[in-house]
């Protein structure tokens, strides 16, 4: 129980930071202060908290779990593509959002869309789609919290209780501290989990007797050698993943975070150091995930390897339900924790567990963002601000934080899929396909609200279609995909073991390209906003 006690101590510190931020802001019950920390974050807090906001359970537990099953390809799929695309979008889009937010007082992307395209209800449609896509991402945090606490306590804290504790702590510091508390907590957490990686690698390497022998043994076995290369992954699939990081800037919590910097110059260090921060987190997680395949003396990992072997050798003869059960048993979301439990001293496992907890609790920013969006894009937009004092907006935002956290917790108890799949398939894909909206609004004078509506509806329909398709067509056993629709010798639509493929690409590729095409074609055919509005956006930015 010592690791669990250390993690609980860590949670208490985090809670105190939120309360401290609340006391600091007492008397300033203004929406801009609660939701945006009064646009006053300094350079270090801005870099650390923006990075921490992007690093969720998905980055720590999901990446090591994906690497456990798929090998080193995980780093190339998500980390290295993110290290180019995310800072680039911060440089091009984030700086413009900051400038427009400061100039016009925007607090959410939808406020900017409404003003830029002279629309009201279309903005509400965009809000609804963004909110629907963001909820799974919030659920990931709760699930990660439950998984982590269960693992570091050796199963004494069950998943449902661990998830409840994490949800309660996150809800409390977001409720009290708003953006300032969230940013401070994120900064503390980011520093903690940046330290975590190096220590975890050193401890586990020592426990396993060094990585050289483990790497040699993995290479010597035909079953595990492919984990050290990318031979099991098709180039189209690999290319598809470079579209996923486009989701980052389209996520409302990241776009809103861009508005919190005190000066635009604070983006400079963030843009430059972002790729290095990604490397510092993902390299140890991915590498340890791969090495876990040699840790078969750890009972939990041995069970996963056996489930994977059964799935590979007998998968074709099993029912879809049996395959799903084996897939869940072989999922590696907790391998990092199992390695720490086996190889780290008890007290150190607790500290490292707290480091992992720091990452999985990144759902705070999403909860706050959704609360900001509801308060500003719905409550204030449809008259709440006129009828009630500004303090009421803050109270509304806080109430929404509570309701949303409870909802996310209840959903997390029901969600059956692994953290990684859930995140990728719905939230990341949908937001990547929404990125043409931001790019068109900021860089193309000719974009219109009807183009934005067409792209948004397309994204909503496509995400729903993928979800329905994957429910109706069970995942095949590991190996070649099940072709569902082919024409002219081309595999147009197929069900893979991990999801869906269209012409060999992940759904994110056609979804994003068609979204951009709809934005372009429909905008060309429909009337543009007034010249006055366009001039306000492009006079200095052209």
């Amino acid at each position, binding site marked *: 129980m010592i690791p669990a006690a250390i993690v609980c101590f860590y949670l208490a510190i985090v809670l105190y930071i939120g309360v401290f931020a609340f006391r600091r802001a007492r008397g300033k019950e203004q929406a801009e202060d609660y939701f945006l920390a009064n646009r006053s974050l300094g350079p270090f807090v801005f870099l650390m908290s923006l990075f921490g906001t992007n690093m969720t359970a998905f980055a720590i537990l999901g990446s090591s779990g994906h690497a456990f099953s798929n090998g080193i390809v995980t780093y190339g799929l998500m980390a290295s593509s993110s290290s180019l695309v995310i800072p680039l979008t911060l440089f091009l889009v984030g700086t*413009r959002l900051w400038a427009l937010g400061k100039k016009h007082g925007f607090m959410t992307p939808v406020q900017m869309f409404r003003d830029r395209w002279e629309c009201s209800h279309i903005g509400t449609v965009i809000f609804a789609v963004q909110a629907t896509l963001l909820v799974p991402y919030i659920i990931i945090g709760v699930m990660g919290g439950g998984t982590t606490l269960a693992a570091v306590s050796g199963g004494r804290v069950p998943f449902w209780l661990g998830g409840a504790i994490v949800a309660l702590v996150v809800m409390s510091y977001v409720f009290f501290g708003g953006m300032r508390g969230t940013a401070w907590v994120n900064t503390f957490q980011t520093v903690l989990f940046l330290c975590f990686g190096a220590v975890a690698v050193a401890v586990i390497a020592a426990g396993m007797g060094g990585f050289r022998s483990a790497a040699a043994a993995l290479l010597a076995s035909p079953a595990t050698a492919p984990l050290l290369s990318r031979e099991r992954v098709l180039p189209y699939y690999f290319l598809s993943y470079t579209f996923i990081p486009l989701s980052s800037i389209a996520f409302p919590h990241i776009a809103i975070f861009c508005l919190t910097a005190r000066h635009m110059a604070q983006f400079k260090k963030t843009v430059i150091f972002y790729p290095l921060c990604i490397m510092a987190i993902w390299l140890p997680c991915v590498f340890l995930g791969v090495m876990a395949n040699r840790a078969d003396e750890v009972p939990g990992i041995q069970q996963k390897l056996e489930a994977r072997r059964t799935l590979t050798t007998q998968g074709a003869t099993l029912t879809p339900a049996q395959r799903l059960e084996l897939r869940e048993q072989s999922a590696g979301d907790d391998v990092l924790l199992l390695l720490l439990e086996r190889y780290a001293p008890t007290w150190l496992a607790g500290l490292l567990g707290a480091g992992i907890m720091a990452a999985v609790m990144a759902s705070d920013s999403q909860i706050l963002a959704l609360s900001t969006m509801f308060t500003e894009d719905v409550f204030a937009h449809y008259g709440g601000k006129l009828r009630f004092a500004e303090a009421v907006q803050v109270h509304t935002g806080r109430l929404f934080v509570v309701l949303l956290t409870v909802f996310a917790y209840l959903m997390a108890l029901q969600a059956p899929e692994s953290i990684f799949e859930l995140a990728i398939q719905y939230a990341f894909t949908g937001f990547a396909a929404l990125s043409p909206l931001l790019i068109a609004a900021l860089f193309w004078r000719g974009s219109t609200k009807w183009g934005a509506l067409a792209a948004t509806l397309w994204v909503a329909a496509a995400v729903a279609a993928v979800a329905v398709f994957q429910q109706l067509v069970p995942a095949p056993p590991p190996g070649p995909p099940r072709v569902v629709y082919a024409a002219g010798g081309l595999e147009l639509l197929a069900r893979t073991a991990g999801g869906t493929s269209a012409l060999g690409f992940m759904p994110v590729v056609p979804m994003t390209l068609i979204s951009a095409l709809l934005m372009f074609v429909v905008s060309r055919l429909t009337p543009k906003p007034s010249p006055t509005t366009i001039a306000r956006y492009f006079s200095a930015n052209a």
Partner: protein
Amino acid sequence: MKRGLLTLAVAALYVLHQDIWFWRTARPLVFGFLPIGLVYHVGFSVAAAGLMWLLVTHAWPARLEHDADRDPKSRAR
């Protein structure tokens, strides 16, 4: 000219992400345990940081900040 070169550099790095030359091999193992395909992509991350430094140094959109500071919070919403 400078902007064109920087755009070209971004495009080139994006293409270099698709490293088909290390696709099917793990060897050589750098330091005896890091597969070459993983080391390549770690190097890609470092190169991305270098490229971002070039962008920030040579293509920083300073006029956006001047514009926002000159006319803060005109509050169109």
